[in-house]
């Protein structure tokens, strides 16, 4: 199957352009946009790790190493599209327009972190693995029924492919030919379980065959390959040609979450051969003369500022309101729930 689904790439590890046909599209502005977003979410990610260490937010699942997959896919989306991320896809969410301070809030145990900016169709990160996959099929089905050209993209990991909801979601999308992109980030681990123990199939892409869903396997650390393949899946979706499964092969550089210790289960040196996506893009930019040291430095400063401000905003955010425990469960809450709320508010008044 590996030969049926060769890993597609546009630039290689050393930053060499492999597909000349893309040459014209990879212009200065275009390339820097990718760099900007990847650097931006990397900065966010590292900041979040630090905040967790300092006890300023809760457990956090870093996405370092997966920036190309998240940025490349998110940039391929249109404004009316829908995003269904997991807990590890805040990079994709930020790129697609999620608010950064709210994203920090999310990792501080605040529901405010699940509320997208108006007009941005971003679902809360799915915590139960694979459950978002049927949602993306359903939302896309709705778009199809409405006759729009919008689509839904579901993010999920290699581990998620083992769940029933992966299967049921893809089958629905296939039967109803919904405009859905199933975007898999195969980072080769599900917590401690390596993909070889997760499945006995050589690729994730081949799982599309079970549903008659076209699929493609790409180098998930090559942001351009991710972008263009997502774009062509999106084009198919918008044109009524149904869903696509994309396997973006990548690598989780660090721990599963800040509570995890990968030395328990990863062989020494595993993954050291992986050139992480920002380095690769930097190499490409240097190779093809897009790199301007000063401009990039300015960009870095701007980004670091933005992230700092977002942290400050998060920390200045009003304390979580106890009322919020009760107020959003129902549109029209039952009397007995209101009674629980009142009596509890009364109880804590004294404190």
């Amino acid at each position: 199957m590996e030969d049926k689904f060769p890993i597609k790439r546009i630039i290689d590890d050393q930053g060499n352009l492999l597909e000349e046909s893309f040459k014209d599209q990879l212009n200065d502005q275009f390339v820097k946009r990718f760099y900007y977003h990847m650097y931006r979410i990397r900065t966010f990610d590292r900041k979040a790790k630090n905040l967790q260490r300092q006890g300023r937010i809760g457990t956090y699942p870093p996405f370092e190493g997966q920036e190309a997959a998240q940025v490349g896919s998110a940039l391929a989306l249109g404004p009316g599209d829908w995003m269904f991320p997991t807990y590890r896809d805040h990079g994709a969410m930020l790129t697609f327009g999620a608010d950064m301070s709210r994203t920090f809030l999310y990792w501080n145990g605040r529901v405010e972190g699940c509320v997208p900016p108006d007009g941005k169709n971003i679902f809360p990160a799915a915590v139960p693995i694979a459950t978002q996959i049927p949602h993306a099929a359903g939302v896309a089905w709705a778009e199809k029924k409405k006759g729009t050209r919008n689509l839904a993209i579901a993010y999920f990991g290699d581990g998620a492919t083992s769940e029933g909801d992966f299967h049921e979601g893809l089958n629905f999308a296939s039967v109803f030919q919904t405009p859905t992109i199933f975007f898999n980030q195969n980072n080769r681990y599900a917590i401690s379980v390596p993909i070889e123990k997760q499945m006995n199939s050589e690729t994730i892409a081949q799982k599309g065959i079970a549903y008659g869903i076209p699929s493609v396997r790409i180098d998930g650390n090559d942001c351009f390959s991710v972008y263009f393949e997502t774009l062509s899946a999106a084009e198919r979706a918008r044109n009524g040609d149904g869903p696509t499964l994309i396997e973006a092969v990548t690598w989780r550089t660090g721990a599963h979450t800040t509570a995890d210790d990968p030395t328990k289960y990863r062989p020494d040196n595993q993954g050291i051969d992986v050139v992480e996506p920002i380095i690769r893009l930097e190499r490409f930019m240097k190779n093809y003369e897009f790199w301007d040291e000063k401009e990039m430095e300015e960009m870095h400063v701007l980004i670091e500022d933005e992230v700092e401000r977002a942290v400050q905003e998060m920390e200045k955010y009003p304390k979580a309101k106890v009322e919020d425990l009760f107020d959003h469960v129902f549109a029209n809450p039952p009397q007995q729930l209101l009674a629980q709320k009142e009596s509890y508010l009364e109880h804590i008044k004294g404190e």
Partner: protein
Amino acid sequence: MTTELKKVGNPSSVTQKMTLIQAINDGMKTMLAEDETTLVLGEDVGKNGGVFRATDGLQEQFGNDRVVDTPLSESGIIGTSVGLAVNGFKPIAEIQFMGFIYPAYDQIMTHVSRLRMKTMGHFSVPMVIRAPYGAGVRAPEVHSDSTEALFTHMPGIKVVCPATPYDAKGLLIAAVKDPDPVLYLEPMRSYRSSREEVPVEEYHVSIGEGNVRKEGEDVTLIAWGAMVPIIEKAAQKAEEQGINCEVIDLRTLYPLDKDVIAESVKKTGRAVIVHEAHATGGLGNDVATTINDQAFLYMKAPINRVTGFDVPVPFFALEEHYLPTVERVLKAIQDTYQF
């Protein structure tokens, strides 16, 4: 707490005799006709019109874009319905039998009921899940479960269960109009057991309101769905023995109509709760704690519960022994009265 609904005309003006299942069908038809965003989906609901004929004729009338046969995939049905509901549609999803809702339990528990909470109302999941429930029709195993308590324990979803054709249509319309997810349970055993006059127009029965079907002074009987006829018969027999029962049909299982329960029990001082689910963890316990919380000083006897036993709903050869009977209820009434 109850849904804001316009009362369309005088609901009793034009009526038609319907069975409970016809009333459900009529309720769906009414909503499909009224609002283009309403969808019906599930296994065999389309061309076949449902294995019980609950959706009979709907696909013919509204097309297979609005009345949709889905793959055999409960988690898929509920999961995609979440997507449809969030994105402007009002899915009425059928689960063929309540015993087959469990594969979708995760979706209901972690998304249908929580999405509004976790987005502070930004996203909501206005959908209806219909499921026939209960024993007594000689169905194969697992087809006869009555596991409402698994859903009343789950914050974020309402649960209703009509006992009569009138309530069936009225509650269905209320459920469809409700901005929150509603689980709509259908007493299979009552599908065709009787007919009553049902308004042909749109009307609703408010979610959260129980119904005193018969007033009485001595003992309060509380049930819902297929157990309502049982307590009514038991009340009649008790009457012959000089015990005057009040008969309450809860109609909504979450949120419970605590007022109607408390008021009645304050009057009678005695309660018999009847349901076909298992005693342990059954919804009867919630009725009991409601009484404990609100009417403790009025109680003349312990609350009595007549329920299915703490065993899986049996294969049908023994189901009559599993289900509460008029005799068991009568015995409980007597015990309670004579305590």
